[in-house]
């Protein structure tokens, strides 16, 4: 299914999806939206996608969600936003192939790993992308130290156990984009991160990951347009 061009400021509000139809508001390069796209793919849920320009947001988008971020789900007049909330909601309304862990302690454990990710890794990830040459060594060290916590949390083939689960899909989008850090000198080394490296290989084999995957060149290309201040959300779309 071809992705649509990102709708921007001044665009007309698209009519709501038909009865019983699920719509995802997304942005082709957003890692948070990809979390929800992975859940949709893993659960085999049919849906339509409308991409939104997050730099020049359409006015109608603020009516859907006051936070004006993607992902957003819309179905039969109901709106859900926030990637993790969307993902749990999908498991709630499509209970087949439930991905969210049902055991309370396991669910808590997965949430805590994401908290570690948010506190120890994400901040340095974004800072590293835009870092000046002299800032890179210190930021890289902080990033690598943070990533070690995630490496330590991976005690089975997948974060969720024998098979990929919620935590795997919620973390994956950031690992797909690690290539963007190559230009500042970071690569996921199999010596430093043997378990994460093996996990990346396993994830890349999964059909749902492949279905949502963009190759490194495309991520790097998009990243450059972001850094230039004029993100091109439609990069890679056929004319």
């Amino acid at each position, binding site marked *: 299914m071809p992705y649509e061009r990102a709708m921007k400021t001044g665009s007309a509000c698209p009519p709501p999806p038909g009865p019983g139809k699920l719509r995802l508001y997304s942005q082709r390069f957003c890692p948070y939206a990809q979390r929800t796209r992975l859940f949709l793919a893993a659960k085999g849920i049919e849906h339509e996608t409308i991409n939104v320009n997050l730099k020049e947001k359409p006015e109608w988008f603020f009516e859907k969600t006051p936070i004006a971020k993607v992902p957003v789900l819309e179905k039969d007049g*109901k709106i*859900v936003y926030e990637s993790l909330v969307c993902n*749990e909601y999908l498991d709630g309304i499509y209970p087949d192939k439930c991905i969210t862990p049902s055991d309370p302690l396991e669910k*808590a454990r997965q949430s*805590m790993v994401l*908290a570690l990710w948010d506190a120890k890794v994400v901040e340095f990830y974004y800072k590293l992308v835009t870092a000046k040459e002299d800032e890179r060594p210190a930021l890289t060290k902080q990033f690598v130290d943070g990533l070690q*916590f995630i490496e330590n949390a991976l005690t089975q083939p997948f974060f969720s156990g024998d098979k990929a689960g919620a935590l795997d899909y919620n973390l994956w989008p950031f690992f797909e984009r690690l290539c963007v850090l190559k230009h500042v000198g970071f690569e996921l080394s199999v010596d430093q991160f043997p378990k994460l490296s093996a996990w990346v290989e396993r994830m890349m084999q999964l059909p749902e990951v492949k279905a949502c995957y963009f190759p490194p060149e495309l991520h790097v290309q998009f990243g450059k347009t972001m850094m230039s201040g004029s993100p091109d959300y439609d990069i890679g779309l056929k004319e």
Partner: protein
Amino acid sequence: MPTQKAYKTGSTAPEPSAPGVLRLISMRFCPFAHRTRLVLAAKGIDYETVNVCTKNKPEWFFAINPLAKVPTLQHDGKVVYESLVCNEYLDRVFPGRKLSPEEPLEKARIGMLQAIWDAKISPNFYKIANKDQEGREDIIKVFKEGMSFLEKEVTSKSFFGGDEPGFLDYSFWPWFERMPVLEVASGFKLEEAEFPKLFAWQAAMRDRPEVKEHAKDTPIHLQYLMSRKQGNPDPDAGLQA
């Protein structure tokens, strides 16, 4: 009787709790830990408390929780941290009144209102206390925008959780208890005329036994805030020597 005094850097770790005993690592003035103390009280769960200094953290705390933040729960070798993760865990694992709905959209609504709180209200709370805060007027505008979402949500019910307080009520309450501090520190307050439902909700919350059990009055909250502003937060403020 175990001490309420906060363990600091250089302290020896407390003895582990007895088997089956739930331990909460906390700090008496932390609003995030307050969320979990409210849920523990609401569900009538027995537990013991170990307070830590969140500025000069005891080294042993990092071995339990790499983020070394409160609240942290310890229960027969299991560790749970992050206030809302703790609260969900307690709600699901312990008996007593259920604080969260099962219905998927109702559950999602909790997550979404929490996201609005996290985006518009809590990051701005203490900034408002600072009269000299740069861009304070814009910050107040965003803060009130967030509050207007809460005002809309609490419309037809007494509490965010319905007839009785639930997950969101206990998540938000600690900041409302501290709001009079904003007024003393900087003259800021919400107007009842603008937020009538929120004011009614606050009155209803103040009447709840679980809220009263953990309530601290404005002077002591202010004392802690002042100690924090001076760079030397006193987690033991108000404790007898």
